């Protein structure tokens, strides 16, 4: 019981910590792409941890199995990367520039060809 309880506590704290640091990352990072990194992933892991803790709490403490939380984890893992990718893609094709200190940019030529077409 103590093991499960401490697991629930650790998961909740870790999840909130990930979500908080993701928010800090959104504030600190310089351009839309790097912010997208923090927003679409650290937050995903945070929500996964919190939902898992909820599932374990209701299973072992309340004695009810809420499988909908597991479905929630599955759907978030399925949809969050697609959302992040679409936001980054839309930003790139509408001409949002990378940060000055960025290294290489292999997508430039393809985007240029696309913009002359349309």
């Amino acid at each position, binding site marked *: 019981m103590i093991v499960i309880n401490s697991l629930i506590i650790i998961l909740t704290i870790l999840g909130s910590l990930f979500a908080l640091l993701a928010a800090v990352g959104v504030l600190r990072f310089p351009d839309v792409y790097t912010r997208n*990194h923090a927003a679409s*992933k650290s937050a995903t892991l945070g929500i996964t941890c919190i939902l898992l803790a909820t599932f374990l709490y209701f299973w072992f403490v309340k004695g009810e199995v809420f499988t909908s939380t597991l479905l929630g984890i599955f759907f978030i893992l399925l949809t969050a990367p697609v959302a992040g990718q679409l936001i980054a893609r839309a930003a790139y094709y509408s001409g949002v520039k990378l940060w000055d200190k960025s290294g290489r940019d292999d997508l430039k030529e393809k985007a240029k060809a696309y913009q002359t077409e349309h």
Partner: protein
Amino acid sequence: MAFQIMLNVLIAVTWMFFYSSFTSSRFIVGYLLGALLILLFRRFFKDRFYLLVVWAVIKLVILFFKELILANVDVLKHIIRPKLTITPGIFAMETKLSSDWEVTLLANLITLTPGTLVVDISDDNKTLYIHAIHLPDADEAINGIRNTFEKAILEVTGK
């Protein structure tokens, strides 16, 4: 693969009919026997023995969660560092995967592991354009993806 699973369920149902007791434990015993039968008769099937595919999928899921946690810690270090020392960039990566769902799966896995985010996929599904948050060496990042996710997906499809 779907055919083998259907056949296995059919064998399990037949096993229940032999005993005329329709309980889940009888079904599980029949299913295990069916898996054994399919394993013995595997040379008559066109595909591999399907439990190998199931095992490859399980390994992919475990790999995914391991990478998700390890790489998240990596990005968190970038966030809490007092000075930003990152050099972002977009690099292109050629992929061996061909079908739509394989490329989609690879793109989702790359996006969910922090440090890399797929921005665009070329029209012929051959090249992935990936934004990396810290890109000292693009070849290293490409090889990392090749050796983990692409390999695991190829193992699932069996090519």
